[in-house]
């Protein structure tokens, strides 16, 4: 070690050698912090070589043997070294003993700090012993203090980052601090490792109103002897402590719980990677901080005494989301991809992809959907309520194309168009209707997530909320009620509506592309939406109008019209069963509750107050969500209106959530909106975490399987299902005396039978018979029900007047076939189709067939003139000729034509989509 440091360090000339300029050059005191195993003498030598003349003195912290060196003193702590600094000194250069600065490092540091009027500047760190591998160039952090430098491992310094800039945090290896600031800050936190100490120091410096900058032209080689193996948990603990010291209470109120959850999730994901240390580290972090709370509060008080700006100043330099989750997500994806990706090309891409908040949101949403649909994969889609299995595609498509409606006691009124949609899906899935339904239902979850992401992306959002909002579409304020009551179609509607909405918007970047392709998409998606829930088709049109009314230019009227034309698929159903739209007595009577409305207001209003650039999107979301709930509360319209309003409300809520969680801006209004959105999101996640997307469990066809298995002539009789509680009756039910009831197919109910067509004479006679039975006045109710082909009466839930009456009658036999349902057999029930000679005809497609014979066949279904051959009215039922051995329904030509036209248009739309893609 040299013994002439004082002379060199106390030069009185300026950097240019001109004594006249000496007053302009800041004077620097050097504080060398000890590092175990580091050569202090070598560090002092490198300091001596600095091409900067205004060093006042050097202080070595600790008990280093430097007494014999001139101009070098010793201090017990960094804080002591700082407090002893004379007022004539301008800056304190705090440098680790394992750091080796280039000769121009200090000069560059001083020059840039002065030029940028920063309070704290730090050097670029290069790894000692490497070919200029970068170690630190300062970095951003996330809100939890996790650093995010953007450096790849082993990245070499090619001066690619050589720009002076403000950063969230600098390494304390080589820091130049203004003396007054240093005195106020009181040195580094010695209880935590250097990284965390640097974060703490940087944050406190910024809160004191100083700029914190990185000076890449100041290069320091770092031997990294200060980095101790196994101290990772303490780094994390230090970061948490830095948060506790720096953030204001309001920030801590939300940051701490989120940090807790993020840490937990990170630990769990690491366990999937067979790493237990992060979990241990996570636990140790919190425990350590709990024990250190008194000293943390003490440091916090000191930091507050010099605070001059709010937390917003810290937020400015923080990255969105969680760096940890992003890293571990990227790693998991990388590992999965590496199974097919030997050269790691995809894995590297995946890591980069995971730096996008939108993708992180998408991955989270997809994971949630995977968990939320697990039950379907293991035990299939529940059957019951408003969720029935598909029919074989050949039958359901024929039924959709003007075929006989078999719901209840039968009707010529066309079936709900979801029958055609389900038939189409089953047909495309090679006729395997069961598998098609399961896959379709699982697909709804993903479709909602991706659809919302794509919709909001088209409207300009890029953050994590746009995909996560898909969860709200699936299980938000409206759909949660519907799926809870077993409305399978509401899941489908929530999955399709975002896409249908998207189809009427065009992103500016996509303007001018194939117009016909867009029209094809709009029509096809409108067709599917209308097939699932006809009235949700209003949403794309309304969305386009609201967007335009707010001055937006992305919505296209012609696309809205094309989407609306998709409604053609539902015309015959809606015209045949107007009550589905207008009859309020057929509604379920859902009550959305005021909690959802409150949360939606909390989420929506700040988005407008914020002057957000996404206020138009929030406008659509707010009007959809609260308008949907408002109109639901009015109780107008039939079940179709009710379903559509609730689904639209959920998609509206999803839009609001997407906007509120799009970008984390540290303003009170956006924080409030984000809190509201998080509450809606968490509420929605809770709804679907049963593994069935919120659908009630059960299989009514399995429960009623006895109707088919106990038949003696091969033809299952109908089931009269009754309950005092409407939600227990599968599908739509009708009000009876103190009960809800409906007739179910004894061979198992299918999607086409969910909705009951308008009452016809047979239905009215049955209603009268049920009233008579419930009064207790019928001694032989079985005889009264026999003509309707009702072979079974099944009662669910609390006892009803019918149950009471069935205890005092002579011809309906109770059977202990189910532990929960009360099952009564009616041995007198007529077959659904029987000839004059008593020969039972069996079902064949949509009709019946049997041995050709003289005379006629009586079909226990509501009469209409279109039954062949030679259908005539027998009281309320149908009598056809038995001569051909076949009985069938000849659909109304208009309904048949409408069905075919809508199918052909769908095919044409698919052609347009294909053509548009090819052109692109």
């Amino acid at each position: 070690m040299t013994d002439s440091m004082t002379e060199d360090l106390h030069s009185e000339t300026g950097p240019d050698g001109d004594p006249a300029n000496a007053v302009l050059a800041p004077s620097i005191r050097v504080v060398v912090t000890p590092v175990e195993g580091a050569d202090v003498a070598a560090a002092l030598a490198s300091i001596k070589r600095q091409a900067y003349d205004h060093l006042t003195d050097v202080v070595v912290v600790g008990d280093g043997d430097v007494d014999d060196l001139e101009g070098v003193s010793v201090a017990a702590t960094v804080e002591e070294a700082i407090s002893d600094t004379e007022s004539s000194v301008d800056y304190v250069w705090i440098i680790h003993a394992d750091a080796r600065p280039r000769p121009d490092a200090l000069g560059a540091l001083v020059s840039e700090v002065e030029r940028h009027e920063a309070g704290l500047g730090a050097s670029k760190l290069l790894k000692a012993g490497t070919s200029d591998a970068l170690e630190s160039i300062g970095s951003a952090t996330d809100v939890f203090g996790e650093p995010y430098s953007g450096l790849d491992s082993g990245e070499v310094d090619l001066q690619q980052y050589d720009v002076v800039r403000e950063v969230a945090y600098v390494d304390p290896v080589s820091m130049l601090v203004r003396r007054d600031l240093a005195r106020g800050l009181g040195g580094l936190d010695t209880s935590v490792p250097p990284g965390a100490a640097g974060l703490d120091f940087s944050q406190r410096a910024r809160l004191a109103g100083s700029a914190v900058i990185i000076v890449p032209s100041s290069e320091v080689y770092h031997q990294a002897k200060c980095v101790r193996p196994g101290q990772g948990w303490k780094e994390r603990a230090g970061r948490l402590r830095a948060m506790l010291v720096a953030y204001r209470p309001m920030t801590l109120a939300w940051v701490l719980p989120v940090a807790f959850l993020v840490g937990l999730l990170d630990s769990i994901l690491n366990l999937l990677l067979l790493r237990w240390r992060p979990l241990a580290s996570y636990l140790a972090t919190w425990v350590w901080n709990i024990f250190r709370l008194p000293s943390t509060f003490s440091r916090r008080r000191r930091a507050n005494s010099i605070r001059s700006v709010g937390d917003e100043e810290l937020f400015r330099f923080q990255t969105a989301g969680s760096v940890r989750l992003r890293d571990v997500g990227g790693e998991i994806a990388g590992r999965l991809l590496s199974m097919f990706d030997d050269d790691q090309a995809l894995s590297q891409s995946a890591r980069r992809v995971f730096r996008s908040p939108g993708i992180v949101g998408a991955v989270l949403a997809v994971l949630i959907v995977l968990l939320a649909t697990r039950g379907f994969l293991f035990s299939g889609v529940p059957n019951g309520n408003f969720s029935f299995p598909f029919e074989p595609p050949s039958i359901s498509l024929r039924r959709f194309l003007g075929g006989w409606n078999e719901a209840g006691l039968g009707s010529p009124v066309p079936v709900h168009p979801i029958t055609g949609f389900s038939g189409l899906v089953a047909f495309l899935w090679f006729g395997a209707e069961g598998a098609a339904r399961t896959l379709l239902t699982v697909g709804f979850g993903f479709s909602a997530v991706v659809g919302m992401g794509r919709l909001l992306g088209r409207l300009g959002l890029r953050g994590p909320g746009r995909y996560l909002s898909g969860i709200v579409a699936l299980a938000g304020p409206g759909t949660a009620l519907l799926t809870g009551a077993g409305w399978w179609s509401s899941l489908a509607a929530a999955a399709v509506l975002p896409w249908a909405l998207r189809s009427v918007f065009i992103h500016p970047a996509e303007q001018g592309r194939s117009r016909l392709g867009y029209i094809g998409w709009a029509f096809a998606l409108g067709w599917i939406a209308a097939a699932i829930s006809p009235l949700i088709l209003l949403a794309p049109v309304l969305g386009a109008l609201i967007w335009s009314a707010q001055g937006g230019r992305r919505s296209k009227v012609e696309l809205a019209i094309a989407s609306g034309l998709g409604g053609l698929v539902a015309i015959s159903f809606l015209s045949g069963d107007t009550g589905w739209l207008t009859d309020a007595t057929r509604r379920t009577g859902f009550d959305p509750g005021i909690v959802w409305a409150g949360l939606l207001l909390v989420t929506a209003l700040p988005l407008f107050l914020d002057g957000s650039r996404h206020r138009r999107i929030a406008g659509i979301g707010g009007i959809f969500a609260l308008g949907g709930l408002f109109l639901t509360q009015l109780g107008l319209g039939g079940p179709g209106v009710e379903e559509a309003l609730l689904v639209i409300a959920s998609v509206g809520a999803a839009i609001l959530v997407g906007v509120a969680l799009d970008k984390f801006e540290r303003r009170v209004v956006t924080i409030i909106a984000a809190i509201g959105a998080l509450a809606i999101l968490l509420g929605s996640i809770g709804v679907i975490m049963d593994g069935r997307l919120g659908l009630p469990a059960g299989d009514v066809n399995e429960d009623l399987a006895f109707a088919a298995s106990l038949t003696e002539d091969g033809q299952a009789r109908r089931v009269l299902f009754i309950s005092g509680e409407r939600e227990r009756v599968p599908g739509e039910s009708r009000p009876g005396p103190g009960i809800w009831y409906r007739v179910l197919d004894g061979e198992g109910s299918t999607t086409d039978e969910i909705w009951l067509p308008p009452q016809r004479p047979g239905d009215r006679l049955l209603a009268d018979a049920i009233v008579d039975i419930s009064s207790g006045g019928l001694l032989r109710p079985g005889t009264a029900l026999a003509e309707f082909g009702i072979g079974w009466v099944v009662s669910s839930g609390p006892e009803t007047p019918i149950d009471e009456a069935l205890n005092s009658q002579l011809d309906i036999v109770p059977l202990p076939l189910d532990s929960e349902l009360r099952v009564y057999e009616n041995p007198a029930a007529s077959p659904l189709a029987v000839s004059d000679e008593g020969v039972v005809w069996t079902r064949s497609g949509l009709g019946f067939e049997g041995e050709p014979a003289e005379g006629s066949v009586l079909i226990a279904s509501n009469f209409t003139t279109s039954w062949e051959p030679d259908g005539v009215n027998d009281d309320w039922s149908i009598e056809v000729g038995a001569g051909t051995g076949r009985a069938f329904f000849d659909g109304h030509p208009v309904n048949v034509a409408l069905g075919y036209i809508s199918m052909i248009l769908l095919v044409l739309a698919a052609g347009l989509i294909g053509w548009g893609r090819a052109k692109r």
Partner: protein
Amino acid sequence: MKWITPFVVLLLGVAVILIPPPDRPEPGIVPGSVEPPVAICPTIQDASRSTNVPIVSNIAGMGQLTAFGGGESVASGPYETGSSGSTTLAISDFAAVGRIAALLEFPGPDSSAASITTGASSLSAEVCSRIPDRQVVLGAGSTIGGARFEVQLMNPYASEAVTEIIAFSESGREAADAFSSIIVPPRSSVIVDVANVLPGREFLTVVVETERGNVVASAHATVGTDEAVWRAVSPEPSWYLPLPVFTGARELVIATTSGADVAYQVDVYGPEGLEEAAIEGSVGNGSEVVDLTGLTAGALGVRVVAEAPVAVFARYSSEGGLGIGAASATAAPRWLLPGAGGITGRLAVMNVGLEAAEMTVIELRETSRSRVFTIQPNQVVEVEFDDVASDGVSIISDGELVPFWMGQQAAAVAVSGGLPIADE
């Protein structure tokens, strides 16, 4: 437009919070309970006894009798009430199969039937029950001195029934496994031999509680050569019972549904008019027997008022004769008394109203006979039946009356009440 959208959103949100949700659709109104026009009768058909089922109705029409037992319909056949609205069916015409039960389907709601069983030296009569109740009481039983006492549980319906029997004797509540969870299969009747389970009891009251399904209960007692059949009734706080003249003992049996003491008061309608609280006492251990023999040799009536619901039965006994019948809990201007007048005997009618009543007594048969009587308030009138056998008696009056009849055949005796017809 900048502030219109948020304003609309705010308005909608406030409206959602303030507007109450729509009413949930409710199911339809439950219609008033309609009692099917049926009755369930205990029947016997064996070598020594045969049951006849007299049917009386206020309309002429078709009905059906279905004898059931062992889980099936043993026999079934239609019948027709003649121009008098009455007929008598012999169970032997339907089924010769011992002790079973029969379901009578009437041509109209104002109809009633009785079970009249005659043997060489026995006679019993009782109105058939119409509505099964959850809890019914059978009092006036006894198993002392070798007397037989059986309870018949009849279930004509398609559903199984489960009942519980609670018995009280002078010893208090009797415990017996045989009385618990008695399953009465569909279309069956179960006979519980109480004497076998509880022999040597002087006073027995049986409470039948139906836990599931529906059951009609009746009792069957044998003392010496005579038999009595009487139906179970639901407990009520007050009862009426006119008592025709009888040379043997006339007793009142007051039965309760628990062993707890229940105070009662008997008002007597005697030759001197109404004497309120002529007898007072307390029912303990399930039943209390009140001997009325000493009050008067003529016809009399009683009203029993108790502080808790009780059941009241008339017990007529003599050397070789036993008749037991349930009292009536209601008074009415019109009555049907199936079986009355089919056997030699007499009818007692008491006027419990405040006005004098004009009463027409019609003995129903192919050529019915009508007689008109005037009954003063609180008076009991006795009417001798015609020598010509009738299917039953119809009473039409303008006052609140209660009838009860007695038939005798040699030493055997039978008593029964009737069916009150509600005002239209």
